[in-house]
């Protein structure tokens, strides 16, 4: 594993943990408390981030996570009751801030930029909160008290080593374990103390049990719990370590700080012989030392995670490419012309079986690329929460159908459009004034509904709010002002809504932090259309607005209409094809600039001849010899003249070779290609790009 792989792994893992953390915090905020499970989970997350950051030598990250871990250690030991009501908002804010902080730093790590070195103010924030929480801590909780699950065998007062055992004035601890059965552990410990006194003032360190010199029974405690040294200064502890190491019969030792941390320093003995870090010991049975602290707090999420593996997307791409090949090859073999006229019963039977298996294989390989939209949806929780605070609105976000599965590439690209629409609803949709809502007979708390639904061929994502809805007059006035609409024309409600998606349209006069950056819904529209989908808006004044995005489930497989021009075969996405028709020469009308048009259903549509446009070597020139494909994409509609309609097929989309992309064929409406059943290649056309190119020329 190269260092880059390790770094990738680290970034991936940390980001996953941050996502988990954010969700926990957002959910907890609604309840206004962290459940004990949450606290344990956050503790575990911070612990992992701390450990891996320290391993990657991102010290600032390790520091911050360490402090947060401290914070949650206090909460874990004393339950959420330790945080008083007034401190809770600060705690939630702090946690969300830290998620943002880590995310930012992760981006820097990814971009190989230097990290933000100045974390002092952030650490100070955490420390202040810790102090606040501690200030209200009942004294009983601060004193070393055995956790409920203490080991029953030894005297309860000195039970299992407790993580909160210690003295804040002597925070640097060193726990020493002696060899099994070496005897006289108390005296050995005392000898250790004497040798440490050689370089460290007696007032600068403590040890526990304290009366090792006189009381022989302390030997048993030391066997069970080790001998605890507590230093005032970290330097003293550092210098004590060599002494401890060279003392006879020392089996192992663990330095750790008062607020517990896993063993960070060297362990002279193999890990197996090392007892678990004290902080991890919650139960009587010691866990294997190699396991992280979290191993003692198993939870379901972790078990679930173990049944999942993360795979590089390029491997999945390669897999689907190969499976596509197998499907094609299979049909090449079974329908081979060599087999014509032969009666091969056994062969046909095996061939059918093979067909069935390849179909299954194709389904499985496709399903590998499908992931639920829940992650994208969950992110909106945070946006709604932040905007509620900023805009002082009360809105709840309802998620429906988060488990709908969509192709990974699509999930990645619908995030921005969805976020844009949610922000839009928050900013412009939900009423500024709560009274307005009450007057309109609505719930004072606004609602944004985000839903996903799988229809088998496409996924429908719907974002609706119950806000003020679209004001037709205001939109029209703005559209006229921006020159999108003409003042003399009467527009229908639907047409006015479409202005919202015109480039450069933003009804909010003010540019806010969240929306109205001059780019508006046109970005949403073009984003969704680039995925092969469509956007529609419906709105009822006073009742809110609904945006519906229809997106194909996967981009890798597409239904297309195959047409031929000369020897070339083109595939047109089926949702661009309106119909196909045969016409005669006299149906063609000519315009002043030598363009051709055809009249269909009382409207005129331009005709583009594929052969001429692409300078193809062969193809029909005579209109009667070919066929017109009536194509539509968004608001454009035209006819493409081709030779022959070959039929509708499901194709596996392949990108064009990188070298070809240098020549910018995309701007001529050529978006990709696909391998046909006989191994030949068809070129995928994009109706919109073709039209645009034809009209520039």
């Amino acid at each position, binding site marked *: 594993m190269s260092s880059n792989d390790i770094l990738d792994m680290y970034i991936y893992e940390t980001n996953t943990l941050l996502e988990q953390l954010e969700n926990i915090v957002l959910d907890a905020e609604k309840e206004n408390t962290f459940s004990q499970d949450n606290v344990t989970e956050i503790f575990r997350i911070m612990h992992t981030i701390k450990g891996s950051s320290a391993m990657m030598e991102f010290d600032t990250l390790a520091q911050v996570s360490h402090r947060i871990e401290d914070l949650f250690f206090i909460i874990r030991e004393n339950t959420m009751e330790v945080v008083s009501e007034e401190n809770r908002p600060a705690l939630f804010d702090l946690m969300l801030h830290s998620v943002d902080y880590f995310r930012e730093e992760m981006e820097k790590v990814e971009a190989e930029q230097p990290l933000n070195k100045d974390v002092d103010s952030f650490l100070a924030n955490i420390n202040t909160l810790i102090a606040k929480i501690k200030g209200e801590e009942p004294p009983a909780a601060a004193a070393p008290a055995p956790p409920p699950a203490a080991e029953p065998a030894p005297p309860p007062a000195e039970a299992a080593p407790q993580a909160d055992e210690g003295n804040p004035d002597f925070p640097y601890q060193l726990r020493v374990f002696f060899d099994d059965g070496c005897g006289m552990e108390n005296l050995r410990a005392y000898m250790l103390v004497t040798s440490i006194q050689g370089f460290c003032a007696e007032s600068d360190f403590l040890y526990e049990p304290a009366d090792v010199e006189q009381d022989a029974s302390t030997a048993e405690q030391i066997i069970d719990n080790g001998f605890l040294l507590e230093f005032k200064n970290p330097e003293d502890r550092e210098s004590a370590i060599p002494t401890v190491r060279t003392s006879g019969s020392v089996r192992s030792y663990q330095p750790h700080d008062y607020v517990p941390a896993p063993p960070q320093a060297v362990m002279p003995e193999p890990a197996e012989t090392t007892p678990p870090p004290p902080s991890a010991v919650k139960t009587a049975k010691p866990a294997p030392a190699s396991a992280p602290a979290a191993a003692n707090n198993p939870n379901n999420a972790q078990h679930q995670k173990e049944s999942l593996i993360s795979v590089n997307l390029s491997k999945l791409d390669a897999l689907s*490419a*190969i499976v*596509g*090949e197998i499907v094609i090859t299979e049909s090449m073999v079974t329908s081979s012309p060599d087999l014509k006229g032969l009666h091969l019963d056994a062969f046909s039977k095996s061939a059918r079986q093979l067909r069935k298996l390849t179909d299954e294989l194709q389904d499985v390989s496709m399903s590998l690329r499908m992931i639920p939209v829940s992650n994208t949806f969950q992110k909106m929780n945070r946006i709604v929460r932040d905007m509620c605070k900023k805009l002082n609105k009360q809105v709840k976000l309802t998620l429906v159908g988060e488990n709908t599965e969509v192709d990974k590439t699509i999930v990645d690209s619908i995030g921005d459009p969805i976020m844009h629409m949610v922000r839009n609803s928050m900013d412009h949709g939900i009423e500024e004034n709560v009274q307005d809502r009450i007057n309109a007979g609505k719930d004072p708390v606004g609602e944004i509904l985000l839903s996903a639904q799988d229809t088998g061929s496409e996924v429908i994502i719907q974002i609706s709010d119950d806000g003020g809805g679209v004001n037709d007059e205001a939109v029209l006035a703005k559209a006229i002002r921006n020159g999108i609409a003409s003042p003399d024309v009467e527009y229908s409600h639907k047409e006015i809504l479409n202005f919202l998606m015109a480039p450069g349209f933003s009804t909010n006069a003010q540019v806010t932090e969240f929306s109205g950056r001059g780019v508006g819904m046109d970005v949403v529209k073009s984003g969704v259309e680039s995925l092969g989908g469509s956007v529609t808006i419906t709105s009822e004044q006073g009742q809110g607005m609904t945006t519906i995005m229809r997106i194909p489930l996967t981009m890798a497989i597409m239904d297309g209409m195959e047409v031929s021009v000369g*020897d*070339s*075969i083109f595939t047109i996405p089926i949702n661009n094809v309106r119909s196909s028709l045969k016409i005669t020469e006299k149906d063609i009308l000519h315009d002043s600039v030598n363009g051709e048009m055809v009249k269909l259903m009382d409207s005129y549509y331009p005709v583009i001849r594929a052969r001429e446009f*692409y*300078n*193809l*070597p062969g193809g029909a020139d005579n209109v009667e010899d070919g066929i017109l494909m009536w194509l539509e994409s968004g608001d454009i509609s035209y006819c493409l003249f081709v030779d022959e309609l070959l039929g509708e097929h499901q194709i596996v989309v*392949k990108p*064009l*070779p*990188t*070298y*070809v992309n*240098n*020549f910018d*064929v995309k701007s*001529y409406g*050529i978006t990709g*290609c696909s*391998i046909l059943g006989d*191994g*030949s*290649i*068809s*070129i995928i056309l994009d109706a919109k790009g073709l039209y645009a190119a034809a009209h520039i020329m």
Partner: protein
Amino acid sequence: MSAMKEDVLFQVQDDDLFLTDEDTVESRKYLIFVVDDLRIGLDAEYVVEILNGYTVTYLPMMPDYIRGIFNMRGQIIPMMDIRLRLGKAPLEEGNLLVVVNYNNTHLGILVDAVELMLDIPNELIMPIPAQSAQKLVSGMCSLPDGSGTMLVLDCDQLLHE
């Protein structure tokens, strides 16, 4: 002669195993192919395979020297007629392709014939004289067997200009 050559070959392979830095490799292998009256050497490192017989699909809106794209075991690869690229008349009956992979860009080069694979010490490769700078050529050398001159193909130029 042939025994000696084998010796050299073996040594180069050894070098390849341990020394990957270009400066330390003293000779490189070249695939020599014929285009019109030229013999062109292509660094064997970039050669994926040599194909004979394929179906090319015409891709519109490309320069004339790109004949189209073809399907090599599921991989779509553009095909360049190097005669047209060098400004020569195209061959009517050419169907021999050298498939190259240069920094992960795949390209099929249509050539007249493929001659042989040869080790050429780096010091034998001369820069091209400035006054007769050739298109797409980064150097030249006389072939050790005295049969003529080989031009070294500049893949970078081939793909990016």
